[in-house]
Every structure is written in C-alpha cells, then in structure tokens.
C-alpha cells in the first residue's frame, strides 16, 4: 500500500502563473479531501469529493481555485493566477467509503507551493 501520493512535492511559481497539484488516493478509498496548511491559519479544509462527485467546497476561495476528480485514481487542485498569499502546503487525504464506518483520513506528504 503506497499511501496517498501527491505530486509534485515542491512547486515554485511566479506571481500570476498557474499551479496544478495532483493527488492519487489510496486504492479503494472513495473519498478525497484537500486541505491547506499555513503557519498563520493552520490546517484549513478546502474541498471534498465522494465517489468522484464534489460534495463540499465550502473552504475553497471563490476565485482562482478549482478542484476536480476525473476518475477514482486521481484528483487535481488548480490555482490560477497564483498570488504570494497562496504559498502554503497543500495536503490531500483519502478515506474509505461511508459504508465501512471508518472515518479516519489518511494524508499524503503534501505539496509545498511557493509563489514568488
């Protein structure tokens, strides 16, 4: 079991450029979550997919941020026109289906985004 895979581990972009972050959940897990971690704000929920369908995007900034899950093996988080305040570690997590009554989430190593 490889765990949750996130690529790239580090990404540096210039202000105004686009950044795409990738997440591969644990095989067989049906839910994928994205969180953002900063020193100031801590861990913040961004968005959540279940069986590839978007369920809750209440934490996503209304502009420039979007997430997709085109198939059960990967999800992407895209940030358009990146700004310095987007610099953070972006964490992806996956979880088994609700029918398993298993609610713990398993996290990937994160992608450290630096916007210059």
């Amino acid at each position, binding site marked *: 079991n490889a765990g949750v895979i996130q690529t790239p581990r580090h990404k540096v972009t210039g202000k105004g450029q686009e950044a795409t972050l990738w997440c591969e959940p644990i095989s067989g897990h049906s839910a994928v979550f994205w969180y953002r971690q900063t020193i100031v704000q*801590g861990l913040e929920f961004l968005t959540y997919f279940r069986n590839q369908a978007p369920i809750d995007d209440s934490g996503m900034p209304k502009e420039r941020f979007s997430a997709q899950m085109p198939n059960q093996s990967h999800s992407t988080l895209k940030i358009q026109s990146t700004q310095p305040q987007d610099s953070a570690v972006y*964490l992806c997590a996956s979880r088994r289906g609700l029918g398993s009554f298993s609610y713990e989430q398993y*996290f990937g190593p994160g992608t450290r985004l630096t916007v210059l």
Partner: protein
Amino acid sequence: AQSVTQPDARVTVSEGASLQLRCKYSYFGTPYLFWYVQYPRQGLQLLLKYYPGDPVVQGVNGFEAEFSKSNSSFHLRKASVHWSDWAVYFCAVGQQGTGSKLSFGKGAKLTVSP
C-alpha cells in the same frame, strides 16, 4: 460549527517523562475525534481515533487518549516520551454520519529535551 482548541502551542518534556497534550472540542452531539502527528516536511500520520464507545483509546507508539463528554475534551497522553516523539501534534474533530471534513486545532509542537 465544529471546532478544536489546543491551548498549549509549545510543550517541552524531558525524555522519559510523561506527556499530556490537551484538546478541547466544540461539537453538537457526539463527535469522532482524532490525534495526528506531523514530523518535519511530512504529512499527517494518524496516532489514534475515537468513535463512540470506550472513552480511553489506545494508539501507536504507546500513545493513548481519553474522551470526556462532560469536559468536551480529548487529551493525549504518553507515559514515557522518547526523543523520536519530537513533532507537532494535531487534534481533530469529524462530523458523525456524513463522514465529512475534519476540523483541526492549531497544533502543539513537542520538544523532547535530553
């Protein structure tokens, strides 16, 4: 809305001494609760989890936590700290039934002194 407070941002403990990290949660009803540990430049690793049942739960590496509904708390304990426990510890609360997002505390940075 669910929330978590970890009142001790930094804790220093001597190697071999006991440890308690405090966690207070706010949640209407009975929550799911978790402790995660984060080592430098890594993601979060699950230490232990509480689902409604026995209030004392055991985790990995000798960690345990006790749930108290009356105190809205889920404190983490370890009898004897090892230098390898040097890390940041996060308490999190999840929503029962829907299995949705976790809300995290700000974390407690544990330093282990020789």
